């Protein structure tokens, strides 16, 4: 199989609002490129345009303007049946009047493959997902996970240049979802297919992807590897969307951007912190926020940290304890503090007053 790159250039998609008749930009000037063989996730809240992007990639929607390239060829005007993509649908879209192997063989038959070759290939692929025993069953007599695997194999067996997955795991229970995540990634890598995966589940996106494209309101918010997005989010929307986060208001005091000494010094309530990451648009004496992930937060005696509060709940997870801290200002939501290796650390009891501090080397300064 020859994995191909995918490139979107200035894609705009305008729908007409059914009620008001006004044009609405569902996708607004989106451009990105996916390297061959990568699995890339489109992540965003519902209505952000990620499914529309996927449907334009598959050809079911036509971009209002812009171009789509698969490999070197411009496929913008190519209809879905002529496009070298295949899609795994959220509701699977299995053909109810065909059994498992007929479902899987459908795409191969359309490619006029010899019957023996089809049978052999279908058997091989069904074995890959351990469905070989169920080949003669109709889809209605399969479990959700089995149906999901049939849909996956049916899309992959035609060896598309690009595999498209539209929230494929949203109809499965939590345990199955974890198994299928591993399964999808394994198959995608072993067949080395370029894949685009749409989800609103950040854990799914983190655990699957080579790269994540975070979308918001029809635009791309950030593109990066899972750890980039998690550690180095571009703004507070991305920071909040890809994980639990706490923000502390601060003022920028000093920015040093030397080659080996990159530091942004901020002041929070009279205390100074040197933070290695900051948004490039920040200038000295701007007011900003310090973004902290739960694992970079520390609890201490009241009055010793940057903000005081009380522990409202403790969740014991074995390898860590999640402590929820109620802030003084009750209108702000509780802050989650993750304490790793809880057996060797002090755990503050529920109702006890505490103070919050953070590990500056793990934080980031974002514009307020």
């Amino acid at each position, binding site marked *: 199989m020859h994995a191909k790159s995918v490139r979107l250039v200035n894609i705009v998609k305008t729908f007409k609002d059914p009620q008001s008749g006004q044009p609405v930009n569902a996708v607004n000037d989106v451009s990105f490129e996916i390297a061959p063989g990568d699995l890339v996730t489109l992540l965003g809240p519902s209505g952000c345009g990620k499914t529309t992007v996927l449907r334009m990639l598959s050809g079911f929607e036509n971009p209002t303007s812009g171009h789509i390239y698969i490999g070197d060829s411009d496929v913008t005007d*190519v209809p879905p049946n002529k496009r070298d993509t295949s899609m795994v649908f959220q509701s699977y879209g299995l*053909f109810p009047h065909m059994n498992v192997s007929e479902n899987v063989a459908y*795409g191969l038959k*359309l490619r006029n493959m010899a019957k023996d070759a089809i049978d052999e290939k279908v058997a091989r692929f069904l074995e890959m997902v351990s469905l070989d025993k169920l080949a003669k069953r109709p889809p*209605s007599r399969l479990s959700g996970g089995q149906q999901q695997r049939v*849909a996956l194999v049916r*899309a992959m067996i035609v060896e598309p240049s690009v595999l498209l997955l539209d929230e494929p795991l949203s109809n499965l229970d939590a345990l199955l979802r974890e198994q299928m995540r591993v399964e999808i990634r394994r198959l995608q890598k072993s067949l080395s297919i370029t894949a685009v995966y749409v989800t609103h589940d950040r854990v799914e996106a983190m655990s699957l992807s080579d790269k994540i494209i975070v979308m918001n309101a029809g635009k791309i918010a950030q593109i990066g590897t899972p750890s980039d997005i998690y550690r180095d989010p571009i703004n507070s929307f991305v920071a909040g969307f890809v994980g639990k986060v706490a923000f502390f208001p601060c003022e920028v005091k000093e920015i040093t951007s030397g080659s080996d000494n990159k530091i942004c010094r901020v002041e929070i309530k009279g205390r100074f912190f040197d933070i290695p990451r900051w948004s490039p648009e920040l200038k000295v004496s701007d007011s900003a926020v310090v973004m902290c992930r739960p694992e970079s937060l520390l609890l201490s005696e009241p009055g010793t940290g940057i903000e005081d509060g009380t522990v409202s709940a403790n969740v014991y997870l074995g390898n860590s304890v999640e402590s929820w801290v109620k802030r003084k200002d009750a209108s702000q939501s509780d802050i989650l503090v993750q304490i790793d290796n809880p057996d060797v650390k002090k755990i503050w009891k529920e109702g006890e007053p505490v103070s919050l501090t953070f590990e500056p080397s793990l934080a980031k300064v974002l514009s307020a």
Partner: protein
Amino acid sequence: MKKRVLHFALTLGLVVILGFWIFTNIQNEFLSLAKTQQLRLVSAIAEAFPDRADTEPTPENVLEWLEKSVKNSGGGKVAYVNGVPAPLERVSALGDSSLVELLTALSSPFSLELAKGFDNVAYEETYRSAKDWELDNTSYALFFAPVVQKGEVVGALVAALDVSEENSFINLLLLLFGAAFAIIALVAYQVSFSRDVITGFAVLILFGISLVFVAYPLFESLRLSFYQDGQWTLDIWKTILMSRGYRSALQGSIELGVWTASCSTILGFIFAFVCARTNIRFKGFIAAMGTLPVISPPFSLTLSIILLFGNNGLFTRMGLMPFSIYGLPGLVLAQTIGMFPVAFLTLSGVLAAIDSTFEDAALNLSATRMKVFTSITLPLALPGFLSAWLLVFTISLADFANPLILAGNFRVLSLESYMEVTGMNRLGHGAALSMVLLVPTLTAFLVQRFWIARKSYVTVTGKPSGRITDLTTPGVRTVLVGIIALVIIFLISLYGTIIAGCFVKNWGIDYTFSLDNIFEAVTRGKDALFDTLALSLAATPIAGILAMVSALLFVRKTFYGKRLLEILMMTPFALPGTLVGISYVLAFSKAPLILVGTAAIIVINYTIRELPVGIEGGMAALRQIDPSIEEAATDLGADSATVFRTIVLPLIRPAFLSGLSYTFVRSMTAVSAVIFLISARWYHLTILIYNFSENLRFGLASVLSTVLIIIVFGVFGLMHLLVRRNDNLTKTIGA
């Protein structure tokens, strides 16, 4: 994109050039052929000028010659000009007054055409004017021929020949070329620009079909109702709305509709209520008997009513008939028996959808059963009542078969419009009359759509209420069951009578057993039976496939003009059959589409009329299917046609099968439209049954009716079996 535009423009340019070349060639060739013949004719007339060797021809001779010439010129006008007038000279002519008038008018100021004409005459040549003139609302070309005596030109014959046929031929040619160009342009557009060419073609074809076979005939009907003796006029409508005869027909239709709708709704409700809200046995049997008449061929139940209560009927002969069955009472009886199933089916749907826990709740609050019925069941069912009533009302108004046999002196619109067309040959009047039928039909439809639909309380909870509470006291139940038993016995005896009619020598006169009727009916009805079967079998797959394709387009695809196409395709459902029949006769007995008398027009008529029901069924079935199933197939490389064949059609097989059998049965039993379209070559079984019963050959009519009943019931039974085997599948599609 630019390449495609260029490609498209080049194709169109080429087609225009090619079309223009062919068109001008045909036009020139045709016109010159016509001109040669006309010139030959005019010269021949001129040569017949009274030629006396010694004396000048007398004016009497000239007049006699002119008179003869008019006959020879085939409806033309002729005039004689003595001598050859020089240009600017006043022309004085002898002959047809309007032509002479025209010549006088043309000579002052002297027209160029006139000068050319007389110039040619002076050189002993015959000339045809380059332009045409209007005389008495017709186009004429002027011909100038020399009148020669003793080798010398003594005068000119001016003849005006009718060229309107020539012009209409050219216009027809232009229309055909225009249509061909439009088709090629649309196809080229699809091929160049559409992402889904097959869907584009399907839309084009459906638009073509609905414009040509729905919009065009209706437009022709409408046009002809405003057009009389070559002029636009409101006369027809004035006559129809003012004349007492027509008004009494309208009144009759409405009177009959109200009676039938009321009786049918009551009877239908009794059947539905007993089936849905009581615990009696044999509900399946009652429901079956309550639906049977709706698929019975027309004439069959009417026929047995005549056999029992007609002039020579069983009961009439026994002196048990206090009044004549012909007229309103007979019509109400026949229509109610035939149409109460419609009310029954509508109302049982409504009653089944009303959750009987409401009634249980009321009973629990210690209301009496009567109170529950009047305060809960009836109000909830009221919108259903109204729509059942309206449905039967419109069917009764459009009904044609029953009045045809049973009306007697009672006048109804559908029959009246038939009489206008076949009896008086006044197609405009017939069209206008059947259009009047549209008014109550459309009103009923709009009331149903915008008023009842909004008042409906029926809520689909999705929870089937298992047990039903018996809402009747034993006394009431006995009465209801008694009524139902009477109706069922009556129905069975009607069917029995038809069968009995097959084996009786001469119903009403001689009741001895005989098989003669069967033999005679088979010999005389064989051709009609095979015609009807062949035509119905031809229409069935066409209508079935078209209906499913349309349903797919309407539910799944977006394209320009979708709403319009939907309206056009669904319109025939609301049209009375007589209107459709008359419209088809009007539209398809002239160029460019002469179809009357062929099998095609009957097949097309079946197809167009039965499409809407098939489309509705297909759309309902498709809405149950997850669209991503079809998208998955497309995504795997299937084009629209393949998706339709391998995915859509198998999934909506039940709707497809019932669409097929519905079309077949309705085509086999059609009367109202097809009666206008049959010909000596293509006859229809139902019309033959009608003819036999008109000629009092009830035995033959019975045999053919029985055959028809067997075919219809057989097809429905077969469909039932096929669909049932599919049940497993349909249930899993939604999930």
